[in-house]
């Protein structure tokens, strides 16, 4: 009996302690702190880091050569302006004067040159494939970087934004392994503590070129908990901002939190390999195209927060081609008929759908293909990326976060070397010419959008990809965090405030 009394006393003591702690945990001496629950980036060297979602986080520590605005147009950042030569195969970026990395070294033309060359040549670079247009980089003066191109390419200012040109300190990059753990950039914040897998603390960088518009003193990146407890974490003030999965939107709204649907370039697809049976038969590919009911993905994967798309972008994007919309409407009867006409024996139609992790989307594909008589087995392979990017798979799924440069998005999906083209070196006829034309059209030309859409149209002839749905980037934030600027695919830190 005495033991239980003791136990009760212990609990009471704990509760009292906890009560005291509640105040201590929240109080911070007048500094504004943004606590962001997030999947922490594995790499802090932008050259090594590989996905669009990670660059979003790295943008805390690094500034990029250019930025994009709400319309997705290239705007000044580290480079305050740029100009092309008459032919369009050389572009000169004019950097802001007196820029500095957080290690004190100068962010000048030589540093930009060193970065781009590193991104092209470093062995573990995830960016070299994006830089094929760049022939040479020359530091003409302290602030002028001249880039000679291998082809006429007006996309370079879009390309050298957050995804490809987050500039790293040349001094720090001499030890690339170290840089990958402790970033040295010229971004709005500087990392003060990094415990991989646990947390990253950052404080405001007074030397950031736009520091006057950074109103947050500290950022704490915290490893996101289970999806089910993210909302309660925001409710109790443990986090201020978090990425949100669609199934939690209702809970977040019920908890009186702000759900932010940040626009993006995202699009998901079913990747087919036309070099392998049975997709070497165009009728089978067409059957698959007609078999897909995109609305089911929107309803079950995105809980209605996404939109169906049959192109590598959402339908409101400038490169979306309205002429190609709904080219292959959902039609099971037609799909079955095409399959019968193809004459492919049933044994060839048994397919493995190889995906990196169990997903609702995979199950939807399985059931929709089963409905036209194509039996699909889902194979979860954690090592999926190796056969996928080696183009060894026959059927798989992919979702892109998109790129700032629409031409780059097109070549990634439809180009003969495109990383997202499971059927390389296959390329739809006419795509090369169409994409070259789009690339050669200045961004402010009245023909730009038409040429871009023509390139999309040519690309969509590709039998290697069936696009399914697009989903905005979902975030949840507490009321004390000001509105996020709706920059597609990114989060910009300028102007953001965190109240107390």
């Amino acid at each position, binding site marked *: 009996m005495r033991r239980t009394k003791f136990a009760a006393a212990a609990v009471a003591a704990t509760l009292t302690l906890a009560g005291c702690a509640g105040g201590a945990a929240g109080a911070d001496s007048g500094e504004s702190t943004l606590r962001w629950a997030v999947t922490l980036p594995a790499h802090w060297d932008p050259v090594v880091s590989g996905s669009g979602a990670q660059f979003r986080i790295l943008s805390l520590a690094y500034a990029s050569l250019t930025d994009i605005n709400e319309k997705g147009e290239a705007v000044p950042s580290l480079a305050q302006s740029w100009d092309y030569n008459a032919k369009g195969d050389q572009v000169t970026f004019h950097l802001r004067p007196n820029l500095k990395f957080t290690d004190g070294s100068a962010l000048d033309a030589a540093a930009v040159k060193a970065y781009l060359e590193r991104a092209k040549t470093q062995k573990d670079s995830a960016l070299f494939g994006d830089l094929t247009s760049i022939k040479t980089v020359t530091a003409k003066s302290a602030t002028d970087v001249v880039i000679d191109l291998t082809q006429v390419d007006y996309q370079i200012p879009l390309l050298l934004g957050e995804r490809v040109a987050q500039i790293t300190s040349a001094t720090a990059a001499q030890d690339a392994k170290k840089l990958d753990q402790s970033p040295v950039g010229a971004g709005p914040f500087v990392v003060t503590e990094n415990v991989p897998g646990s947390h990253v603390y950052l404080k405001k960088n007074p030397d950031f070129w736009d520091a006057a518009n950074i109103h947050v003193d500290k950022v704490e990146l915290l490893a996101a908990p289970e999806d089910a407890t993210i909302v309660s974490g925001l409710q109790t003030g443990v986090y201020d901002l978090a990425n949100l999965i669609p199934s939690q939107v209702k809970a977040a709204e019920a908890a009186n939190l702000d759900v932010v649907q940040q626009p993006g370039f995202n699009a998901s697809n079913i990747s087919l390999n036309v070099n392998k049976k049975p997709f070497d038969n165009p009728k089978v590919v067409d059957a698959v195209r007609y078999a897909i009911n995109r609305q089911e993905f929107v309803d079950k994967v995105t809980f209605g927060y996404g939109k169906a798309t049959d192109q590598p972008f959402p339908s409101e994007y400038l490169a979306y081609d309205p002429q190609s919309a709904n080219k292959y409407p959902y039609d099971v009867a037609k799909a079955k008929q095409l399959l019968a006409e193809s004459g492919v024996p049933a044994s060839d139609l048994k397919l493995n759908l190889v995906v990196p992790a169990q997903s609702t989307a995979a199950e939807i594909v399985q059931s929709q293909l089963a409905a036209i008589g194509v039996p699909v087995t889902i194979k979860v392979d954690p*090592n999926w990326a190796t056969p996928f990017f080696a183009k060894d798979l026959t059927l798989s799924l992919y979702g892109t976060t998109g790129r700032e440069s629409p031409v780059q998005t097109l070549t990634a999906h439809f180009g003969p070397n495109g990383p997202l083209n499971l059927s390389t070196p296959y390329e739809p006829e006419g795509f090369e010419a169409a994409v070259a034309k789009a690339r050669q059209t200045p961004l402010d030309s009245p023909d730009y959008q038409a040429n871009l859409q023509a390139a999309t149209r040519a690309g969509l002839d590709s039998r290697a990809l069936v696009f399914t749905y697009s989903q905005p980037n979902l975030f949840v934030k507490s009321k004390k965090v000001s509105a996020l600027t709706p920059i597609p695919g990114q989060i910009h830190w300028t102007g953001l405030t965190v109240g107390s």
Partner: protein
Amino acid sequence: MTRRLLTGLLRSIAIFVPVFLVATFVTFALRALSGLTPAHLQLGESATPEAVAQIEHQWGLDRPFLTQYLDWFGQLLHGDLGTSWYNGANISRLLIEGAVISLSVAGLALVIGVVFGFGFGVLAAARRTTWVDRAITGFMTFISVMPSFVVGIALVVVFAVGLGWFPSAGYVPAERGLGVWLAHIVLPAVALSFDTVSDVARQLRSGLVAAYRENYVTGAVVRGLSPRRIFFRHVLRNGMGPALTVLGMKFPNLLGGAVVTESIFGMAGFGKFAADSAQRGDVPAVQGVLVVSVILVVVFNLLVNVILVRVTPASARGV
């Protein structure tokens, strides 16, 4: 006593070494068989076969299997577990950082388990066959089948969101204040402790009830010893063996089984690290986890054996 301890220690080491060798060797072999590589973790969309080969060469994965294993083992003896494929971080450091968090939570869970487990167990045994005993036994059965993620979420809903007594997630090191530290680990520790409380309570109850039936207890009663003396000198010492053993088994479980609790409470502990690493196919990290787990299990078994020998005289004779 010391001699027996020493033999026990030697015997444990004799078991530990081959188990350890086989376990690590098998993990290594699994990597070779599975074809997992750090390349895709690193390259993403740029994972062309050439780039993959280049990165594998960088990591020395194109060397013969045995060379790799022996190399790793040599480094291990120097306390170096290598670097993670996923983020290139030092694994020994990550494991220590994670273990501090997990030990905090598991330690508190163990304390709760001991206090409440013993409390309920003793109470049930003292009031055996009464309604108190039945209520406790029923309650213990109930909490032992509650999955910790359900308990965790319920605790968050009630104590963090509803009452606002505790933070709902995160971890703050003890250097930043004992109160804050404790506040952050209370809910996860409670969620984690349910299993321990119920197991210890049930084992203790049956151990004590059995001990009460022994002749020496009847003898003591006949000799007119006070109930308290009978309980502490005769019943408890002889009846707590099974409960202690369960407790010894529990600690490694608490550490390893904390995956769910840690992910619900957003804590970067050992269990979460283990699960994440396994999911990512981060082989060196998984091997590091394995090494530490094997050591933990052995150390705790040893500890329990020592305590058992000291507390319950009978166990010294057997085992």
